[in-house]
């Protein structure tokens, strides 16, 4: 499906019309988008504080990941789903928005990193060497917080 087709479908669909015109549909969907953000960013912060030895020291990294990994995945799914619902009613606006395009690229990188390198480290029985932990935390936190910042910037770039 090309962007043009999405655009045409979006403006002819009655269902999408409801999303677009119901007064509080978009802020309600965006509220769920933020619930997802809270789960993804929140668990990411917890994992990284633990990897860096700055917090939650009495619980091991694999125990934390066995308990919180599914929260991160659940949060991500909620945010992606609600993100699509916000995009659909106004595809032309978002596709032209530099912050939105940037966000998608960083999001892709963040997901890739999270489900490869990061997943492996938080599941390993032996903790990473301190220098490696710092590097992983720096990449992880930078990527996810930039996704958030870029998302916030969408509204300010029109």
């Amino acid at each position, binding site marked *: 499906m090309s962007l043009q087709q999405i655009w045409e479908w979006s403006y002819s669909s009655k269902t999408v019309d409801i999303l677009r015109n119901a007064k*509080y549909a*978009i*802020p*309600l969907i*965006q*509220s769920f988008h*933020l*619930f997802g*953000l*809270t*789960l993804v*960013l*929140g*668990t*990411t*912060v*917890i994992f990284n*504080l633990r990897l860096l030895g700055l*917090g*939650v*020291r*009495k*619980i091991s990294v694999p*125990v934390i990941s066995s*308990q*919180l990994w599914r*929260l991160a995945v659940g949060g991500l799914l909620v945010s992606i789903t609600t993100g699509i619902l916000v995009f659909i009613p106004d595809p032309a606006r978002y596709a032209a928005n530099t912050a939105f395009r940037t966000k998608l690229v960083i999001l892709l990188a963040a997901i890739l990193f999270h489900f490869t390198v990061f997943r492996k480290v938080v599941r390993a029985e032996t903790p990473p060497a301190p220098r490696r932990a710092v590097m992983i935390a720096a990449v992880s936190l930078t990527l996810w*917080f930039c996704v*958030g*910042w870029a998302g*916030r*910037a969408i509204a*300010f770039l029109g």
Partner: protein
Amino acid sequence: MPFLSWCHWLQNTPFATGIRQSDLLFPLIEGSHIMALALSVGLILVFDLRLLRLAFAAEPVSRIMEQFVPLSLPGFAAMFITGLLLFIAQAEKVYQNTFFRFKLALLVLAGLNALFYQVKFYPKMAEWDKSGVVPRGARISGALSLIIWACVIALGRTMAYEL
């Protein structure tokens, strides 16, 4: 109304005008207010989930509380400071916003709920924690906390939509 005229004065101080009219400062403060969700609500919800046995069920409640709750305090401080700045910048409109008023009421409720836990369940935590059974009231308090914070986030998002 005297409070409204005070809000009018407040948002017209050079400090408030400076924030409101800045192309960089306002989005930066607003963005920080949202990102601080991860450091505040994101941490407190782990404790709520433990009370409900939905996470870390094998760990004592006392350990989860001591490991996660203090970490959330800098996050809540960041929330409060950035929230206050956002209020100052648009005091008149924000004060008149119905969603904002509900949000404030729920924040008070969240505080009372936490206080209720501290007074009623924290003093005897060592006892019930050993038994492995979280008292009903403490579980309700955990569930309430999750619901209240979710509503606070939704009201925060919606109030901004109306400004």
